[in-house]
């Protein structure tokens, strides 16, 4: 390559290089987006589960408080 008289045509390598660089960066950006979306969905579901857990706990605590009174009236 270094004893040539004319500049070699290495444009194919250049195109391959730039294509790979942009594809890798694009895939990484896509992976950040997809992970973010999936985590946001998980977050929504977990928040709902946490809310329903808290409601059911509050309900059972109320029932425990009421049950000695109802036993007393019988």
């Amino acid at each position, binding site marked *: 390559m270094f004893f040539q008289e004319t500049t070699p045509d290495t444009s194919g390598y250049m195109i391959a*290089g730039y294509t790979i660089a942009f594809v890798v960066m694009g895939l*990484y950006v896509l992976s950040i987006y997809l992970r*973010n979306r999936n985590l946001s969905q998980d977050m929504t579901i977990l928040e709902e589960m946490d809310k329903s857990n808290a409601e059911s706990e509050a309900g059972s605590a109320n029932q425990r408080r009421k049950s000695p009174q109802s036993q007393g009236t019988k």
Partner: protein
Amino acid sequence: MPSKPLTLRILDIVSVIVLGISAYIALFVAPTELVMGDVQRVFYFHIGTAWTALLGFILAAGFSVIYLITKNLLWDRLQVAAIEVSLVFFLITIVLGSIWARPAWNTWWTWDPRLTTAAVTELIYIAYFMLRQGIDDPDRRARFGAVYALIGGLSAPITFFAIRLFRTIHPVVISGSNPEAEGAFSMTPDMRTAFFFALFAFTVVFIDLFWNRIRLGELQDKVEQLKLKVTM
């Protein structure tokens, strides 16, 4: 998860623009190198990604030290983000180098000190994520990760100085005069413009991806905490 801050949205757009301008300057403004031809143009992205990746690995080592002192998981998130983005950039560096080497050295790969240290660095940080995935306890994971990233951080300066310390065929572009280097060239003013703009562009892109990755880490931690709360 709160919506993206306006500054980050602007930075996303700016990153795309500067990356586009950098590619334009490298492909259309910088002159064709006479000996290697067009393949020399990958050099601009090769150096840009290498610079940010090595900087990211060193930053991660710094975050590790701060984590080990403070035990604040924020520094662990910063460390993971810096390493992940750097790992992607360094992969691009290695692939572009290999593509350049094919016409310049007549081989895709050779076990030259620079190429070997670069490959070892990439493998060290792939192993870092494998190590983290194997540990469930967040504090233990962060502690192990910090120690690993601190020791692994040594590979970044070793890779950078490999071409200055050992006999190598890899060209030294910045302040280098290695007589054994194959594929070395001197830069014209337009090449310098493309070179420095690529450094700037990849620094901006790195900051943008780093910020986005930090936000992802925050969300991951929140989901992990909520999972523990719900299952208990």
